[in-house]
């Protein structure tokens, strides 16, 4: 995969996800980071070749559900997979994320296997 973006307000979690991607043997040339939905949209504008987004839900400024909505409002965004990676593992939250256009869901705490399984269809 050429370019992937991790969106999480925790720099610790962004580092952990990068490490887990390596552990899961998912090869990515370039990993971009954003601390919230607003930063993610800016990154996406500057990097239209981003191939996949991994996003937290609870974030300041703009949360992950709002980010999914904003991305899906954009033309031709259906081909961009968005996987939610969040502590919010309840059915309601999962339904909300998927209903708004997310393509997958991983609940924290996670293992390399759960990340690999969530990304399998898109890599």
């Amino acid at each position: 995969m050429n370019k992937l973006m991790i969106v999480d307000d925790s720099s610790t979690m962004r580092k952990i996800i990068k490490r887990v991607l390596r552990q899961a043997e998912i090869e990515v040339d370039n990993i971009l980071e954003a601390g919230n939905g607003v930063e993610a949209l800016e990154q996406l504008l500057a990097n239209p070749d981003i191939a996949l987004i991994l996003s937290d839900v609870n974030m300041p400024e703009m949360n992950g559900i709002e980010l999914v909505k904003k991305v899906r409002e954009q033309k031709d965004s259906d081909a961009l997979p968005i996987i939610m990676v969040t502590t919010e593992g309840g059915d309601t939250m999962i339904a909300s994320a998927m209903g708004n256009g997310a393509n997958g869901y991983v609940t924290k705490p996670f293992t390399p296997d759960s990340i690999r399984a969530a990304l399998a269809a898109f890599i």
Partner: protein
Amino acid sequence: MDLSTDKILDHVKCSVEEVFETMLNTVAVLVDRGECEHTNDAIQAEEDAFTAPVAIEALVSFHGSINGSVILRASTRGAADITRRMLMMDEDEIAEIEEIRDAMGECANMVTGALKTRALDPAGCFELTIPVIDTKVNVEYENPAGRLAFKLADGGVAVEVWLEEVYE
């Protein structure tokens, strides 16, 4: 769904064990469970961690049919160890204070998120706040529902649950 204090503490215990095993690759052993006084004296299960004069606390609140907060507390040394484990740093590598604060906040976030998934969501619609991290966090609620003290491989961590008083 039973949202009694005892049940919430049971779920918090399971959440802490799951988060520390999965994300820190360490076993969190429950060593004390009792009334929460929110003082250093109240959490003496692991001497090194809990009697430290300077600690780091991370708070995440939940709002729904009941309101409350979950607080993770560790000595600065214990919090640094948690950070090293989360980030898989070397033994002699020193974690920056911002890394420690962020790691403690993320731990509190995952523990409270797991509590929400296990216990709160089945009982209704709940929302979580963004973590607040400080040497001593301000707790909004007046009812200290309980505390759990865990021993880790190196040091320990205390978890407190505070609930809003419900007047009938």
